[in-house]
């Protein structure tokens, strides 16, 4: 089942990537943020697992990358999601349980909150830390 047909009728735009150069088979930019749960549900139905959620500070916002892959052969697919700083995104923690910790880590390091997450709290950094370390605007206190 081709990935493009899995994702039909959703607001995705294909971005070209070559596996041997980058390690990714397909990547899609999700234009409508509210479709992320539908995307995750479809991937789960077709036996893809959530490898990880990567987030980085683009300068004018945050880009979240959801990495899906298969067990039986490599089919690494990226879903890009662009958000503003500290914006709230729909959580996929009830669809993929691995997202519970992945989304907590993104919140911990970048500041995005996730709507519907069972217990969003800091995972890696100490409790009581102010600010979000992975943002480019993070300044370490002396």
């Amino acid at each position: 089942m081709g990935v493009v047909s899995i994702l039909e009728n959703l607001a995705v735009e294909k971005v070209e990537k070559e596996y041997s150069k980058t390690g990714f088979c397909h990547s899609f930019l999700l234009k409508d943020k509210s479709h992320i749960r539908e995307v995750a549900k479809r991937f789960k139905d077709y036996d893809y697992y959530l490898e990880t959620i990567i987030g980085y500070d683009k300068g004018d916002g945050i880009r979240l990358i959801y990495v899906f892959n298969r067990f039986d052969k490599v089919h690494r697919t990226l879903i890009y999601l662009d958000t503003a700083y500290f914006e709230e995104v729909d959580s996929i923690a009830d669809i993929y349980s691995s997202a519970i910790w992945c989304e907590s880590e993104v919140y911990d390091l970048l500041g995005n909150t996730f709507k519907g997450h069972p217990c969003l709290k800091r995972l890696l950094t100490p409790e009581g830390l102010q600010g979000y370390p992975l943002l480019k605007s993070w300044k370490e206190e002396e």
Partner: protein
Amino acid sequence: MEEQNNIKQDFYVNMGPQHPSTHGVLRIVLRVEGEKVLSSETVLGYAHRGVEKMAESKTYVQMMPVMDRFDYVSAMLYEWAYVGAMERALGITPPERAEYIRVIMGELNRLASHFLWVGAFLLDLGAFTPFLWVFDARERILDMFEEVTGQRMTTNYFKIGGVHDDLTPEFFKMANDFIKMIYDRMKDVEELIESIIFLERVKDLGFISKEDVLDYGLTGPVARGSGVYVDTRKTEPYSVYDRLNFEVPLGTKGDCYDRYKVRMQEIIQSVKIIEQALGMIPEGPYTEKSPKVVKLPEGEYYYAVESARGLLGVYLLSDGSTKPYRFKLRVPSFANLSIIDKLLPGNKISDVVAILGSIDIVVPEIDR
């Protein structure tokens, strides 16, 4: 006050962060009633060093030794993932001899990690002797590392285009001696370990179903113990693994015993791979010329390796300069540990060590 008058009291038992069985600085807060665990909560972050942020202010070459420090029991597999991502970006392919050297070193690292796991697992269950028997084998592997790289644990051996030094004739002699003794040693260890007491402790404990594997994104022996065929060396072949002949052991039920059995069989398979690679290694250069100043072209790069615990992925986002814009490590123990809060409730306190041990985590890589 009312709780004190209650005959059935539940109270909190804290395992860690300093604890002989948590394999690192990990804290698990258990709510127990008598001997039974009612709920558990994992507290991470005791070994968080902010490496991903640190990578953004270091050059690519300066990050190389840091990769060793994530998982010090099998360091070279992490170097391999990082070096692979950079080679993919720069379009450099290492020569054949370097690929074979990498495979041999990678499998030796996998063996070292599994040996330590077997010893620590049995030590948590109370058997002291297997720990020393497998550590004797591990010492020989570390001696081999010292012979080639000068270091025992954090070796910093891989570089862009190949490896830093060639294998010496002494290494081949040590490797052949090691292979000769390891089959008998593992047979002895298995016979010693599998007593009725051990089987009673680990059988039918900590079941992980195939749905759980998909749901939690588990990889490595944890997933293979439940019967899911996932091995990056087979499904996403890298280096020269497609030329080597080896099997991927699978479990059936997904309990602690199956995960133990899968790892024991993987030890034998790794030794077979090393045997084949030692026979197939060609003569030639052991490294390409690598650029003096490492500047990756703009774009995103990902490289996945099968580490001892599962799928290890390195993600590099480059903006064309000498320092990465974003460096992310996809760590197998992170996903594997997330299932623990589902596995522990309903079991006894003594089972917590058995289940945690069978998952095989290394905390510094989780916390990064």
